[in-house]
């Protein structure tokens, strides 16, 4: 089973009622501490530079202003994000606090209103749609599944 199979799969309730589609797969990534000489793309590029005039403090300041970057270990499936309609990619707006540039996030949020998280334990079956007339991948939820808020922690 691949993540790509689950994405955009139809979501069915325990009784087979269509509920929407899978818009994303939520994972928990193990993160690790590490000594500050981490190997990595950008740092490496910088190291190759002849940077006599670049002070170390400057270097650190530049790093802290950068985007988040973690040393990671295993990735475990937590659940599926279910959206009531097929509205394409999220662009990240639904689950974050970003509100600019107007009006893009507002439109995307509107399209994705009503999205919720279902725990992986509450997924009863994943069908690859190989059976005749099944029409692609579908996911069936277990009885008593819970609709959890979709926001990222």
């Amino acid at each position, binding site marked *: 089973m691949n993540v790509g199979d689950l994405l955009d799969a139809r979501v069915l309730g325990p009784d087979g009622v269509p509920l929407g589609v899978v818009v994303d797969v939520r994972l928990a990534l193990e993160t690790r501490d590490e000594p500050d000489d981490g190997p990595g793309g950008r740092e490496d590029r910088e190291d190759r530079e002849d940077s006599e005039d670049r002070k170390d403090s400057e270097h650190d300041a530049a790093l*802290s202003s950068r*985007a988040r970057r973690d040393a990671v270990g295993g990735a475990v499936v937590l659940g599926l994000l279910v959206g009531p309609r097929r509205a*394409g990619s999220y662009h990240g707006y639904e689950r974050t606090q970003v509100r600019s*540039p107007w009006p893009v996030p507002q439109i995307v949020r509107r399209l994705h209103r009503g999205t919720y998280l279902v725990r992986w334990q509450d997924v009863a079956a994943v069908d690859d749609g190989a059976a005749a007339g099944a029409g692609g991948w579908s996911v069936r939820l277990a009885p008593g599944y819970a609709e959890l808020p979709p926001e990222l922690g």
Partner: protein
Amino acid sequence: MKKVFAAALGILTAIGGFVDIGDLVTNAVVGSRFGMSLVWVVVVGVVGICLFASMAGRVTAVSGRATFEIIRERLGPRAAGANLVASFAINLLTLTAEIGGIALALHLASSVEPRLWIPVAGLAVWLVLWRVKFQIMENVAGLMGLLLVGFAVALFLLGPDWGELLRQAVPPSPPGTEHPASYWYYAVALFGAAMTPYEVFFFSSGAVEERWTAKDLSTNRVNVLVGFPLGGLLSVAIAACAAVVLLPAGIEVSSLSQIVLPVAQAGGVLLLALVIVGIVAATFGAALETALSSGYTVAQYLGWSWGKFRRPARAARFHLTMIVALLLGVGILMTSVDPIAVTEMSVVFSAVALPLTYVPILVVANDPEYMGEHVNGRVVNALGTVYLVIVVVAAVAAIPLMIATGAGS
């Protein structure tokens, strides 16, 4: 001192790099038909390209991710794939136009048929891409492209009636002899020429080539804010030269030779020679940039190793893509299609493709996961939203206007 020099060089390069065959042809055509009445579009275009080029440069410097990686990441494989096909096709069209421009300019200099120059130009472009260091390539083409200042010199030597030029420009309105649809068609073409998407692909990927980090943001800002507006002034000078000399004579610009006539009239053989060298350098520089952009877009979408700072063998598929693009461009030109016609097509289709490039940049420039503390400020976002609307309107209007006016007649 070294830093000042680097900034100065960057600015000069931006000026030289801003004017390409699309700007040359479109501005001259517009000047000869509409006088100065479309200058406002150049101003709008320059502000737009400043806004988005600096945004793309900032995103890349801070996150390390170039524009097309971001487009793929934000739009997903399907929409970004469609975007890639469109961008690559337009980029190829622009590359074709630039190589044709080199050949036409060399034809002016030598009388040797353009058809003979086309393979030579293609080969020369490839050799530079294959061998020459990125900074040297950029600086030499940019500095020599600066000779296009000859158009501004020519304008002063022509001693035009400045008041009349100003009257044509403000308030903007189409001349009575022209249909409003034609006026708006050329407005869109001029906007497309000023904001060609390849400039953003090149600018952001160039930031990786030159290993920019968050510390280079001020250089980025200065390059953009000085270079592009001065490039815009050159565009206006080209249009003004055509408006002063060609418009009153009833000349419709359809070839590169007509574009340089005002320069010869004003400055004689010497200025003419300098401007022709400038045109060769500017189109050559733009051919390099568009060829690189074709490699950048494909490699970034598919995650290949790319960049001129690597040995060609360490970015094999990237170099192969550029070779294929160059061969295609040369092949298209060898069917003896008119490079000027290709140029006009390329700027209009650029206008159509603008939202595909600029919307994802604007979105990512607001994402703290990418940008940390360097997310867009309020003013930039307000401007960005205004341009979002302009860009979408221009894109939607481009094709209907092209059909309605029969490509501007």
